[in-house]
């Protein structure tokens, strides 16, 4: 058999350029780019420099066409999440999988689809199963470099006269992939084998036609089949539009011009990125860290996953003298038995989403930027697991937290250079995700994941408040979707949407506020629900004196008496839980079970008619000392219910008079009160170095909760550098150490351990 295949390989004509294989082309591209420091070794851009109009014309056609493909495809054949939220993107690649041009949308997938094509090249798909004109490939394998299982890629090779000229790729966020729990980002999976139906770069069609075995297998492997099918049609339609576009361009311009163009446009992207770094940043080092809670101790999970811990993501950005951008995550802790693990491609690709909105705010987003940057991602960490068993279904949970501090770091450069309009204190942790599934109100096997998270609060800038209830860092087109559409899709009625006071971090400029929606179970034949959000931790700091956005919690009530209350015309819970210190939901209903707690990640629970669940969409961090906020802005916030009265007084130091429910700030009294608060700050604070002595004693005595000690033990086990810096900072004796094995918590899967390796 092996011999037959070899004979066949010898007969097969290679599909690469000049008789090369794709693998040869990939290898040569990496080598020449690395050796010269220029993409494809291009020290000059002859096409662009000699015929710039023609060059730009080709670019505009391709860019416009790729954007057009996305817009058209999502309107003609897409699931509601794709159509309502724009959860898709398309990109055009070189034969070797470098991105030339990309659409708008979730552009993190420029990198992940490129990783999938590179995987096919590396694994000799050219020989078996073969890469031919009009083939269709599918990938959603997390360990190939996907973000999470629900991001499904369609990849179509583009040929010109028997030679591969590129790839079109499209991705959509599908609503369900048949994981151990319903929804696109389920809680419950703790291993790859719980994550759902994973397709590893599989050829699913030839001659532009999907194989029947693929259609049957895939539609039997997921819930919400209708939406899976619609999304696949969307992706194929978009890829074929892009393929037609490329072939039209080649007919007009000639294949040699197109080949030269694709090389130069990427090198142009690399140069543009370097130029932007020099224009907007300051050489040096920027440090920050983020944390996410894993409160799994009491969840219904396998014993080895039941522990409380914290995901730790320190980052150090180095802007080198030559404007190369390097981000090192040394010190990050271990992957775990939770669905929040990630791959290096997913974290680095996501970084471009934000950079394209701040550092490189133009449409020339391609892999040129990748060639101008460098990342350090520790092997064995939560975003580079050393075990294929790791689960990734809800990787955004950790990714959004890890990315946010990077924008805060870069903002120190924007601030230093005076580009205050670009400063961003960070982003909201886009959760809670409200998910569930079962037989819906139409009797169909279905699933849901509320994409209201597309509209969280934005971090404050240095010159204005963050925008409220409007955006998510992963989707540049934030949209909470229409309630009426969600009610059509999900067996849940809205009992209101309302801004959550104080959810944006306080500051001279406050973070954009988050909000809450309240949903009532209605009509499902059988249904389960759960939430996935950050709970006990604020996942990012504020900036330059601003406070972090508020942390999370959950509210759910099962077996309520709301049906009876409606019949009697009595009040029922409506709108948001605007002051959780003084809750009102419980005053307007009774329920057999009420969850009002910080357990913002939960596993499936049956959910019936008249049960109630709240969705809490987070705010963004604040900028600057709150005592410097214009008191009139605090007055507006108070009257428009963006802040509660006691916090307008305590945090902002404002003094108000009230008449008929309308508050007016007393400027003179506020000024005096703020002066008093400043005095109190000095009285109740202490010199930092003095405080450090007390904190050091706590460390020596190992005085911290188990989750805190576990987080450090994992980082210590993976990173000597982090350990040395930690000990150096606190002046800790050499013999002091916290080991995972000594903490009495599960350690299954903890392979890399420099302490054991030393032994």
């Amino acid at each position, binding site marked *: 058999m092996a011999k037959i295949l070899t004979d066949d390989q010898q007969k097969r004509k290679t599909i690469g350029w000049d008789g090369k294989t794709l693998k040869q082309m990939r290898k040569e591209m990496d080598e020449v780019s690395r050796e010269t420091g220029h993409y494809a070794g291009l020290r000059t851009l002859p096409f662009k420099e000699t015929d710039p109009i023609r060059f730009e014309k080709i670019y505009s056609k391709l860019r416009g066409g790729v954007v057009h493909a996305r817009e058209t495809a999502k309107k003609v054949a897409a699931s509601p999440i794709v159509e309502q939220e724009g959860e898709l993107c398309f990109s055009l690649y070189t034969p070797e999988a470098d991105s030339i041009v990309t659409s708008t949308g979730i552009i993190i997938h420029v990198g992940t689809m490129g990783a999938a094509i590179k995987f096919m090249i590396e694994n000799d798909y050219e020989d078996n199963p073969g890469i031919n004109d009009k083939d269709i490939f599918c990938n959603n394998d997390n360990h190939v470099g996907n973000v999470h299982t629900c991001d499904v890629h369609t990849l179509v090779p583009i040929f010109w006269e028997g030679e591969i000229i590129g790839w079109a790729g499209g991705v959509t966020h599908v609503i369900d992939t048949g994981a151990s729990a319903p929804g696109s980002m389920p809680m419950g999976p703790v291993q790859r084998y719980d994550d759902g139906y994973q397709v590893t770069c599989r050829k699913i069609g030839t001659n532009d036609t999907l194989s029947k075995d693929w259609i049957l297998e895939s539609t039997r492997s997921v819930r919400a089949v209708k939406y899976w099918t619609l999304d696949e049609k969307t992706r194929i339609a978009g890829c074929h539009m892009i393929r037609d576009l490329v072939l039209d361009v080649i007919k007009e311009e000639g294949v040699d011009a197109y080949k030269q163009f694709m090389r130069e446009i990427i090198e142009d992207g690399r140069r543009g990125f370097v130029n932007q770094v020099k224009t907007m940043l300051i050489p*040096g080092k920027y440090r920050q860290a983020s944390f996410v809670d894993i409160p799994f101790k009491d969840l219904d999970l396998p014993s080895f996953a039941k522990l409380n811990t914290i995901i730790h993501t320190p980052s150090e950005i180095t802007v080198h003298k030559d404007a190369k951008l390097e981000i090192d995550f040394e010190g990050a802790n271990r992957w775990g038995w939770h669905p929040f693990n990630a791959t290096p491609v997913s974290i680095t690709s996501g970084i471009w989403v934000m950079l394209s909105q701040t550092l490189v705010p133009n449409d020339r987003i391609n892999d040129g930027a990748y060639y101008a940057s460098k990342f350090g991602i520790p092997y064995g960490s939560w975003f580079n697991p050393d075990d294929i068993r790791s689960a990734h279904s809800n990787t955004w949970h950790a990714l959004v937290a890890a990315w946010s501090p990077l924008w805060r770091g870069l903002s120190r450069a924007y601030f230093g250079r005076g580009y205050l309009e670009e400063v961003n204190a960070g982003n909201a942790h886009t959760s809670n995700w409200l998910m569930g599934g079962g037989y819906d109100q139409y009797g169909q096997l279905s699933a849901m994941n509320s994409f209201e998270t597309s509209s969280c609060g934005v971090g404050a800038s240095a010159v204005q408040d963050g925008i409220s209830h409007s955006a998510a860092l992963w989707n540049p087109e934030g949209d909470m979707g229409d309630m009426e559409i969600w009610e059509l899709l999900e067996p849940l009625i809205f009992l209101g949407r309302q801004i959550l006071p104080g959810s944006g971090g306080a500051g001279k400029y406050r973070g954009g506020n988050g909000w809450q929606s309240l949903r009532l179970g209605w009509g499902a034949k059988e249904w389960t629900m759960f939430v996935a959000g950050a709970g006990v931790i604020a996942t990012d700091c504020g900036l330059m*004196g601003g406070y*972090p956005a*508020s942390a999370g919690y959950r509210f759910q009530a099962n077996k309520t008496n709301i049906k009876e209350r409606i019949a009697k015309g009595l009040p029922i819970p409506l709108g948001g839980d605007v*002051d959780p210190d003084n809750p009102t939901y419980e005053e307007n209903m009774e329920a057999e079970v009420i969850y009002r707690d910080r357990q913002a990640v939960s596993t499936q629970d049956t959910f019936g008619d008249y049960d109630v669940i709240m969705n809490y969409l987070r705010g963004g961090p604040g900028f600057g000392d709150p005592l410097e906020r214009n008191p009139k802005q605090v007055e507006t916030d108070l009257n428009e219910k963006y802040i509660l009265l006691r916090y307008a007084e305590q*945090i902002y130091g404002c003094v108000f008079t009230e008449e008929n429910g309308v508050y007016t700030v007393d400027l003179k009294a506020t000024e005096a009160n703020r002066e008093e608060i400043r005095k109190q700050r000095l009285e109740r*604070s*202490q010199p930092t170095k003095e405080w450090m002595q007390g904190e050091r004693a706590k460390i020596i005595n190992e005085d*911290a909760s188990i989750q805190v000690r576990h987080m450090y033990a994992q980082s210590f086990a993976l990173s000597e550098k982090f350990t040395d810096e930690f000990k150096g900072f606190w002046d800790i004796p050499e013999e002091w150490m916290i080991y995972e094995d000594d903490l009495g918590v599960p350690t299954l899967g903890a392979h890399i351990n420099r302490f054991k390796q030393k032994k």
Partner: protein
Amino acid sequence: MAKYDKKRIGELIDGTLEFYQLKEMMSSHKDAERFEIYREVLQDRVSWDDPILLPYGLHLYIVQKANGDRIVKCDCGHEFCDYKENWKLHARIFVRDTEEKMNEIYPKLMSPDPQWQVIREYYCPGCASQLEVEAVPPWYPIILDFEPDIDTFYNEWIKMPVPKVKA
């Protein structure tokens, strides 16, 4: 390429520009002379004469001293330390490590749980301004946020002389 005068940059610093003006600034190619104008506006506003080398944070500057030192200084005049040290170690700190202290700024369910995370507020010893807030688990080393390479920035990137103390 856009150009802005000192008045416009002053308004930017003061946060008094309308959104359409900010949007225009965000959408335009960046003005190369922004840094120098910005630095001059800020220098005019502080009460001391040490030349500002780099705005380092809200209220904080890296300034040049006559003896050659480069230090972190608050606009109130308080001088922290050499710019390569962490100024936070020379500030005053207040740590919110109990539910009660957290509840002063967030409703209980909306605050971090001190068993998982604390909030550290760093104040200027001179003017009591809140200069930075960290939300970190207990024991976390105090973060040195930013170490700029000032000489490369001036000499190789913007190609301007590093400001000197007037003789």
